[in-house]
């Protein structure tokens, strides 16, 4: 009986270790496929090189890094005002019943397939941008708006949870001192929930950096260093997805190397979010 229990415990431990194994396997395979070309070209040349023409053996992904940065920054700018208003309103001003109805509705936004978001960008945003602002449509602007909407649920939902985790005594203490609700939110609740909200924002950034299909459909994908919001741009993810099905040899390795850069970026963001959310919990 005892040995059977031990065996079961061991089996369960194996399943618990599966996420570590998968994570390490992913790192192993991506690095094994992509690292050789980075070493051959040189890290500096690969990351800071501005020419991407695989047929000529030029592998510089700097334009894609800039494109990713622009689009992600734009997405955060679009997303923050909406997601923070949602979170603060639902957590502090609405009744539990309204919160209980609206929160799952917002989380449903996360369930809409990313290709549908990309498609909405094509059929709704492109004509709007073309008619009112000029340009062809596919641009950093359109990608930022769509990605900003896509990461709304991530940030909103984590921000609501962090606001709700602030002990009720904070609110009572501040209100009993004569502060208005908004003063209470600004001076007592938001500072206490800061780390949690920040970790939500960073997870949102991670989502935006990693999004692929929607971005391909709406960002234009040209390999240029963009100068304005209306320029098309190509992200790291799009670079991989667009060329993967015909790439061979060095070219394929370079796409995996793009994956390495993406992987490291996401890992850094994950670690920051993890530290922040742990700090939030400790409080």
């Amino acid at each position, binding site marked *: 009986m005892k040995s059977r229990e031990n065996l*079961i415990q061991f089996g*369960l431990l*194996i*399943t*618990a*270790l*599966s*996420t*570590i194994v*998968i*994570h390490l*396997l*992913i790192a192993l*395979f*991506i690095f094994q*496929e992509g690292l050789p070309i980075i070493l051959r070209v040189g890290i500096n040349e690969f990351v800071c090189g501005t020419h991407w023409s695989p047929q000529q053996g030029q592998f510089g992904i700097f334009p894609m890094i800039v494109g990713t940065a622009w689009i992600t920054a734009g997405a955060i700018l679009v997303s923050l*005002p*909406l997601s923070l*208003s*949602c979170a603060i*309103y*639902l957590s502090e*001003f609405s009744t539990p019943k309204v919160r209980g109805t*609206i929160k*799952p509705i917002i989380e*449903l*936004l996360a*369930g*809409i*397939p*990313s*290709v*549908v978001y*990309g*498609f*909405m960008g094509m059929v709704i945003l492109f004509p709007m941008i073309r008619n009112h602002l000029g340009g062809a449509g596919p641009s950093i602007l359109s990608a930022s708006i769509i990605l900003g909407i896509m990461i*709304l649920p991530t940030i*909103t939902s984590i921000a609501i949870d962090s606001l709700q985790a602030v002990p009720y005594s904070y609110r009572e203490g501040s209100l009993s001192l004569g502060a*208005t*609700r*908004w*003063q209470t939110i600004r001076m007592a609740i938001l500072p206490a929930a800061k780390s949690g909200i920040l970790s939500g924002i960073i997870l949102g950034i*991670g989502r935006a950096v*990693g*999004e*692929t*299909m929607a971005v*391909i*459909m709406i960002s234009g994908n040209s390999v240029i260093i963009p100068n304005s919001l209306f320029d098309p741009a190509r992200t790291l*993810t799009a670079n991989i*997805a667009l060329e*993967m099905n015909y790439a061979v040899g060095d070219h394929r390795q370079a796409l*995996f190397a793009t*994956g390495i850069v*993406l*992987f490291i970026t*996401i890992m850094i963001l*994950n*670690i920051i*979010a993890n530290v922040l959310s742990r700090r939030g919990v400790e409080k």
Partner: protein
Amino acid sequence: MLKPILLEKLVKKILFVGTAITVFILFFIIFYILKNGLAVIDMEFLLSSPKDLGRAGGIFPCIVGTIVLSLIAILIATPLGVGAAIYLTEYTRKGRLISIIRFFTECLSGIPSIIFGLFGFVLFVVYLGFGWSILSGGLTTAFMLLPTIIRTSEEAIKAVPDYYREVSLSLGGTKWQTIVKVVLPSALPGIATGIILGIARSIEETAVVIFTAGSVLHLPTSLFDSCRTMSVHFYILAREGISMENAYGTAAVLIITILLINMFAYWLMHRLIAKYS
């Protein structure tokens, strides 16, 4: 300088508008897709094969591909994920190993699907020689779903009150008997919620599937056949401008499926909450 009371009223209005815009966006997307897509959907669209690359005909092979691929992903991710959740909650709640496992689970859920796609392509399609197939797609998607299933199962198991366990143990039940006969049945609605959300996630997924299961537009006959899921079909129809009409139709089927699945999951979760409060 505004008076604090006035300022509060103003802030409340602004926040309300922000919330309203967000909710509006969601309803707009759903309404827009359904408005343009519902007219396309009929029995023939759902049950016939596409003709001329999808310009005409239905999406039957894509529906079959989507269902089979999701099933494989769930059948692999569920035992692994629930097992991990049991270990993390019932056997050890603290300790170095546990925090390492938690950290990697968090990280895995943040890894972009394109990276999973690359990984699945190298491991399953190339090294293991499964080719672009439902099997490669299902396995890779399973890995991607794992964090969701672990997290929701953990929450569900943690919500089972401790006295359930104490009663079972005091009656002479072993730890495993307690888990199987007392804890898991009580946590079942919560675990099922996680699995159902996992199904929804695998239906939405495009980047992973296109790299591991390919996009061949035929009715798959074995697990080693390539398939084209609804999301991939929609992506190809829309991006290559093959047929806007059928793209809307496919999108409407996708949205309706996802909505129904999410509502079902939400209903299940509420049953669980009602049970313990």
